[in-house]
């Protein structure tokens, strides 16, 4: 396994973006924000506000023009994606279509698929944990959309890194399935205690598992705070505007519906 992988007992590491600036040509993005260790932070904001870019910067897929990315207090700005203590689940294309479930998960342990007995045990355990036992030999096309994302989560488990980045991974799933997946993420988080950065468009998702919220607007962090405050109408005005006018009513009605 590559260096810098946290052991299983290590709790999530704090993530800090220190004056990270980034430009897609015209509109510059500037991120200067802290993500608390071992918490689930929902990252929200309108389309084009830079949510995915923020995750890509943390993961190392994008190189910022200036600023630093610190994970667990260590500057990882110069590290390639595979050396960062980070796992990421994308909205799609999390799996190699020609490799089996088992192999796709196994790649989280060895990029050449040279697996030890211990690796195999970890893979089996992760598949069991994500409800995929018995589907080891299947190819991604033989799985449902939800199952594919479970495979991605199983790989997150075997990689066991202190930071998990979720880039709208459940956006294309139906509501019930999405809730199941969110619960799985919450359960995994409860066990492993990693730091989770979770990009979502759905306020219900953020409320269901999010402890903190970071709200982006126009390429900058417009507001941060506890999820409870954001969703009880005490949140910043920009967020209320994003959720929609009369958000307080809508939210409380929604909450009421869900609790029945």
């Amino acid at each position, binding site marked *: 396994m590559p260096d810098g992988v946290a052991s299983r007992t290590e709790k999530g590491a704090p993530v800090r973006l220190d004056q990270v600036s980034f430009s897609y040509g015209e509109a510059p993005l500037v991120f200067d924000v802290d993500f608390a260790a071992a918490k689930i932070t929902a990252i929200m904001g309108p389309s084009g506000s830079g949510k995915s870019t923020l995750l890509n910067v943390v993961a190392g897929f*994008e*190189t910022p023009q200036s600023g630093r990315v610190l994970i667990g207090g260590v500057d990882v700005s110069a590290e390639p*994606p*595979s050396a960062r203590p*980070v796992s990421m689940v994308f909205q799609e294309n*999390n799996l*190699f*279509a020609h490799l089996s479930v088992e192999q796709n998960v196994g790649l989280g342990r060895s990029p050449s698929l040279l697996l030890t007995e211990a690796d195999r045990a970890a893979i089996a355990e992760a598949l069991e944990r994500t409800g995929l036992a018995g589907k080891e030999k299947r*190819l991604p096309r033989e799985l449902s959309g939800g199952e594919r994302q479970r495979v991605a989560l199983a790989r997150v488990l075997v990689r066991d890194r202190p930071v998990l980045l979720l880039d709208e991974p459940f956006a294309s799933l139906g509501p019930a399935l999405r809730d199941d997946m969110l619960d799985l993420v919450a359960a995994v988080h409860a066990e492993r205690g990693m730091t989770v950065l979770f990009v979502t468009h759905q306020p219900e998702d953020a409320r269901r598992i999010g402890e903190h919220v970071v709200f982006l607007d126009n390429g900058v962090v417009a507001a941060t705070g506890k999820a409870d405050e954001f969703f009880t109408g005490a949140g910043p005005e920009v967020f209320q505007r994003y959720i929609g006018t009369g958000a307080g009513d809508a939210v409380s009605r929604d909450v009421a519906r869900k609790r029945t």
Partner: protein
Amino acid sequence: MPTRHPADPRTTAGIIALAAIALLIGGAFAGLLFEGAHDFSGAWAAFDPYLLRVVRFTLWQAALSTLLSVGPALLVARALSRHPRFPGRTFILQLFAVPLALPAIVAALGILALYGRAGYFAGVFAVIGGGSWPGIYGLSGILVAHVFFNLPLSVRLFLEALQTIPADQWRLASQLGMGARPAFRLIEWPTLRAALPGVAGLVFMLCITSFTIVLTLGGGPAATTLEVGIYQTLRFDFDPARAVTLTLLQIALTFVVVLALTRLGANVAGDTNLPVAPRRYLSVNGTETLLNVVLIVLALLFVVGPMAATVMAGLGADLGRLAGEAVVRQATLTSAVLAFLSALLSVTLSLALTMARRALALNRRSGAKTMLEHAADTGAGFVLVVPPIVVGAGWFLLLRHVGDVFAIAPVMVVTVNAVMAMPFALRAVRPAYDAASERHERLCAQLGITGWNRLMLVDWPSLRRPLATAFAFAMALSLGDLGVIALFGSDSVQTLPYLLLARMGSYRTQDAAGLALLLGLVCLALIMAAHWLGTEKDRDA
């Protein structure tokens, strides 16, 4: 901020591939410049009236060929597009793809077997003309051969263009009661006109760089082009200074045409997808149908004729004796080995360039492309500016100072043909690689799957088929090539096309016909394999 990640091995592979290509082309130019500087007055003296006549003929035959191919192709393509349910339409279109796969020398032989002095039609033509039929050597032969190759190509390209007309426009046309004439003027012609410069430019380009056709069907000094001139100057007159002049003129000519072509946005590699028959909402009246049927049948006969003649003449040869001849066996083996190596090299170089281009494009978030990325992107396209005979001529001139030019024949055949097939190989490999990369890039970066691991675990499964397509195509091109081997061939290194040319030269027409059948069938099989591999749905996808 400079990227501090370790260098991507894909970029390194691309740099090596580019260096190899640069060495091949650069070496040829070094040979030419060295020779030119060595004997400048000789090179200058080559500008004589004969040279001017050669240049004029090169342009004249190309212009005529283009006119005769593209004009009728417009009508045939339109006829085919008007009848989406024409009986055997798909089969006709597939037949129209065959000339693309046939080596030029095979087609030339087929045309001679049909319209030559002793061809199947000689008797008919003699009766019509009242006297003896002289055969179609010279300009007429060159034109027939060029039209044989380029009419079907143009038809397919125009048809592809017509296919892009949205179905809604046809629905609208039928609702408005448009007849054939207004439909042509308002719907079909604008589309065809947009495609016309590109198609005509491509055909013109193919015709000014045509070597084999002119060599085999052109008759003497009156019908010689620059490319054949280079060959004759080196192989027969041995006048290196003159060869330099001819070669530089040829490069200048092709460069101007390619430049014009890229301005027009033409697809220089020139292969097409098989257009599917769309639903049509247009009724075609009786007279027009009759006219269209006649057009299609005429075009079909013109294209099928030489192919049928090749098969008939080939079967008439003493195939058993040919197969027993040691020379034939040796040439077949040589051809197979050289073509195999050439295809392997071509595919490897293409893959390296594709990977490098992608890696560089991914690393460059925004801003301008670097020189390297430009080179990896379009560099391969520029080899089309330098015809194989030109590269061969350059190295021929350079190596004659060093030792035996003929000993280097295998290396030249393999490398030059490999590079010449690259534009086609790239078109098969690049879209597949870029699509796979689109899906897998971040995943590989995250999981640390790089280099050999990545090639075997991730890239190979999605590239297997496109690579096989590129390989088969490159192998067919290399197998049928006569350009480089014509310069470098000798009794000790003969390929099938070279042997075929030799048999034609010594009037052993039957042998030549037998060899042509063999060569044609092998190339056709390879191209069909390439097509099948390229279109068959990958079961893992």
